[in-house]
């Protein structure tokens, strides 16, 4: 479990607070979606979780242990991240090399490296592409390889920083399918950053951030019903919820339930 307690951060002392008294809990195996647009503070939050920024106010505990100077490097290994742009995160000449890269860097023995690379590629349905050149894959495939590279490191927490925003609808569906599988296995905590409300439906908990603050949090249903927060963050409801709102008083339901009820 990760606990953020009253985190505040400014890039320059005394200036605008990129994070303004944020408290949040991520339980093991939970899927938490963080929604908000550029400048809302979500990227700063990611940088703090990844240990890139460490001069924040407040405290962070990871599995009961307070994060400090001494344990920062060990703690960092519990986190892995997938970024927005599928083209900016490859280092290997083949898909397999790319996934193995992080393991090799960490001095994982060869046998284990091969095994973990294979398992990770299997988890994202990309094993048959192991010999392919990453640059020639589709956007969705690239992001799946990036997820495999992250998973190979056996992180406790997988952060997806707008990982679906630059790929086509099919790729997006592929990535979300993989995340659902990971979520079902229950071992990895998912921190999913997006501004597309139709992508958060599988999350256990969702948070809307604006100007460095949490302006709404709860279940997906609670988020969908928080019209003020949605409006303030320039978010729009997924298609089926828009229809539900117009014709069925905004009941929280799935697409199939909508068709049923109309």
């Amino acid at each position, binding site marked *: 479990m990760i606990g953020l307690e009253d985190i505040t951060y400014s890039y320059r002392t005394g200036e605008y607070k990129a994070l303004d008294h944020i408290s949040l809990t991520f339980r093991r195996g939970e899927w938490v979606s963080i929604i908000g*647009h*550029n400048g809302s503070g979500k990227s700063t939050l990611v940088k703090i979780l990844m240990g890139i920024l460490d001069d924040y106010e407040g405290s962070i505990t990871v599995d009961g242990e307070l994060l400090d100077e001494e344990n920062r490097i060990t703690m960092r290994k519990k986190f892995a991240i997938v970024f927005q742009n599928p083209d900016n995160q490859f280092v290997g000449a083949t898909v397999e090399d790319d996934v193995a890269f992080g393991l090799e860097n960490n001095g994982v023995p060869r046998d284990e490296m091969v095994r973990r690379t294979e398992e990770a590629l299997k988890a994202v349905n990309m094993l048959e592409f192991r010999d392919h050149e990453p640059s020639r894959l*589709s*956007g969705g495939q690239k992001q799946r390889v990036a997820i495999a590279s992250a998973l190979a490191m056996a992180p406790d927490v997988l952060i997806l920083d707008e990982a679906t925003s630059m790929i086509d*609808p*099919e790729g997006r569906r592929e990535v979300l399918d993989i995340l659902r599988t990971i979520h079902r296995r229950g071992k990895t905590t998912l921190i999913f950053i997006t501004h597309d409300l139709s992508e958060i439906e599988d999350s256990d908990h969702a948070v809307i951030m604006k100007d460095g603050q949490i302006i709404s949090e709860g279940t997906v249903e609670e988020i969908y019903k928080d019209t003020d927060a949605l409006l303030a963050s320039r*978010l729009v409801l997924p*298609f089926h919820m828009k229809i539900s709102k*117009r014709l069925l008083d905004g009941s929280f339901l799935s697409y199939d339930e909508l*068709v049923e009820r109309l």
Partner: protein
Amino acid sequence: MRITFKNLTSIYHQNTPFEHLALNDINTTFEEGVYYGIIGHTGSGKSTMIQTLNGLLLPSRGEVHAGDILLRRKSKQKDIHRVKKHVGMVFQFPEHQLFEETVLKDVMFGPKNMGMDETVAQEKAEYYLDLLNIDASLFQSSPFDLSGGQMRKVAIAGILAMEPEVLILDEPTAGLDPKSHIETMALFKRIHQEMGITVILVTHDMNDVYEYTEYVKILSGGHLVREGRTTDLLTDEKLLERFALEPPDIVKLTHDLENKGIIFDSVPRNVEQFTELYEEWRAGNA
């Protein structure tokens, strides 16, 4: 300006082991003043088609007729430049191309580059910035101090200020927040209506194609496999499935309701129309 492709073929890395046929013997026309959508799976040839439309790529075989200008494999720079003057292109993330010291200078760059004198370029720049609701108080600001949405508007103003007759939009809403997405698409609709120019939208967003375009061209594996009215092609779920395209949300819902026996008099184009038609149906069947 009318643009016609005649037996147009485009080959990348010709005569190398990487040779790739991106467009294969395309014959089609973009009529003046129409809002088109070009759709197709990733790798279907969409990008090649739009780059060919504005002279960024020359055909390997065949011809492009843009008004009275002819482009072919060995066309001269002069002709290419003439086409570029009339065909404006809004690339993905156009704000990445801003570079001038001030908003006004950035928007004036294109018109000046096309040979307009300073005064005229400034008039155009001010006019289009205003059209896009960029307040005059921002004209002397650095474009890099603006918000992402405003930066994109400035970049678009820069293209409109060249007063193209054809405007190509390549995934124009990629990376925008949902509200800005809606605003940007509404803006292009307005530009199309008020300026009467041809708009060519290339996107994966089938909902936008369905709501905004009048005609669509479907590409698959470098072939133009179908063209016609948006309302005819995008409501044909079998056709869409064949080319691995998603039906627009409204179309899918309308069809799913038809299967339940809820049949509307016409096909809705957007959520508002759907709501109206459904309420009419409900009133008539209560």
